[in-house]
């Protein structure tokens, strides 16, 4: 396993563009830190200070930071599709196999890399969130601090699932740019299917099917936090009550998709003549 990870890391880190992209994808979450300390002064009328709205108090801070950090996953997604695209355009995939790498090992080396980077990203977010939370909230009780920490797990699963999808699309179309375009097409397709079912049957059925689709199921892992913030601010917030928690079945659906994408990538490579 270490050998396969080392292989892929050498391929990535010696490549200037993927090195820059990996760097960016790790650095960007730190902007949440800057955002949190932002004080915008509107012509001396009033000062917008995000920290004062209780956004960065435990435990809600886990939810908010993971939600926003997850939006930066696109940078590493580019790395994932290009690490497949480059292997095809340089024909190094062929040479790797001739040199004695099995097709299974080839896919696994990519998958281990995805897990490795998702783990690092999750660890960084953990540290950042902990810092922000400790700075803004007065809570010092450990059990309260780590309440809602399941959002971190959801974040990790979400990254692994999303990058596995990118890996599969990369294997499918062999070109980085097309794979990213495909991702967008898939997004639209999910909503078209939703629309058709909604129109033909009803919205309940449409939603329940939609929640099983790859991109939507990943989105469901970390629900948008705006409503939760609104609830905590509104005097009669119970009216807006919605389910923002991370559910076990949401995790299972994404893990199932991850397995499907990795397996399909392997099948694709196995059947293909290079």
């Amino acid at each position, binding site marked *: 396993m270490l*050998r396969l990870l*080392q*292989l892929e890391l*050498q*391929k990535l880190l*010696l*490549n*200037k563009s993927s090195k820059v992209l990996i760097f960016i994808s790790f650095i960007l979450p730190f902007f949440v830190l800057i955002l949190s300390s932002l004080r915008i002064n509107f012509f001396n009328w009033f000062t917008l200070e995000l920290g004062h709205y209780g956004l960065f108090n435990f435990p809600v801070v886990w939810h908010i930071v993971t939600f926003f950090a997850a939006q930066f996953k696109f940078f590493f997604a580019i790395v994932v599709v290009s690490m497949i695209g*480059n292997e095809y355009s*340089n*024909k*190094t995939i*062929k*040479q*790797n*196999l*001739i*040199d*004695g*790498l*099995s*097709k299974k*090992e080839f896919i696994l080396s990519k998958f281990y890399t995805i897990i490795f980077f998702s783990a690092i990203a999750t660890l960084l977010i953990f540290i950042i969130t902990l810092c922000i939370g400790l700075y803004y909230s007065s809570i010092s009780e450990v059990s309260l601090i780590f309440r809602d920490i399941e959002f971190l797990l959801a974040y990790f699963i979400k990254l692994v699932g999303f990058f596995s999808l990118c890996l599969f699309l990369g294997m499918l179309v062999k070109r980085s740019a097309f794979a990213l375009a495909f991702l967008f097409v898939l997004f639209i397709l999910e909503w078209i299917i939703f629309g058709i079912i909604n129109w033909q049957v009803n919205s309940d059925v449409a939603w329940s099917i939609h929640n099983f689709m790859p991109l939507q199921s990943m989105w469901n892992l970390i629900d948008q936090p705006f409503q939760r913030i609104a609830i905590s601010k509104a005097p009669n917030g119970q009216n807006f009550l919605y389910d923002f928690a991370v559910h076990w079945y949401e995790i299972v659906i994404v893990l199932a998709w991850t397995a499907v994408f990795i397996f399909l990538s392997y099948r694709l490579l*196995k*059947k*293909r*003549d*290079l």
Partner: protein
Amino acid sequence: MEKINQILESILTINNLTKKFGYLTAVKDLSFTINKGNVYGILGPNGSGKSTTLGIVLNVVNKTEGNFHWFDGHTSTHDALKKVGAIIERPNFYPYMTAQQNLKLVCRIKGVDESKILEKLEVVGLLDRKDHKFRTYSLGMKQRLAIASALLNDPEILILDEPTNGLDPQGIHQIRQIIKDIANTGTTILLASHLLDEVEKVCTHVVVLRKGEKLYSGRVDEMISSHGFFELKSDNQEALISILENDTSFGSIKVEGALITAFLNEPMDAKTFNKLMFEKGIILSHLVKRKESLEEQFLQLTDNKEA
């Protein structure tokens, strides 16, 4: 006795291998064995299935039917490939890495110690360019790096597919010299080429393919059951021809201007022939005994099958 065992040690066995690309059959029911210590050539015109066959045994093309196994048949293909060195068509490396970094990656794949890198770069004469990026290399240098990469694991067999394709004469010469040097160390080599003189110069055994079918497999010098031919000139040409035509030792006789070519039906050396002619009162001004070149044999073989 020990030597015989060594000779019979098989490295690659192919049985009834078939590959179809849709309606096109690229390789048809192909069988042959590669034994240790010989230098093999796979000969055939473009599109005869050479690269496809190599692709199948190298794990990058899926077979349709048949089977093959490496060594004794107990190792999986990808493990066997760690003991094989191969280059197919054009050299494939990561353009943004230096030669040394590229070879380091190959070492990691093959599970070989990295100490071999400099040694093999020296063999192909690229040591002074080891820290230059692969994309700055000329085609000849790329091809030499590919050979260095294939040699990293001191392979049991070296597989080369069209190694001199697209190179300038100097590059071709360099690559051939490297191949000859490697062959001299006793490494088994499998060389696919459509260049006959290339195969003739280095190979002891040959497999001839045409349209995916095997026409011949065996020693180069036994490719055609031929006893060779005489090239003759004489002032008394007509008498010479009539003698040759009446002699059952000779088959077909070709006359091109003053030069007569007489093909032998049975073994006969030049001395005996000269004596025979002298006894019959014919004085030869030109006498050469030759065997068909590989090119002539190859054309004869492919023509025969066509008819």
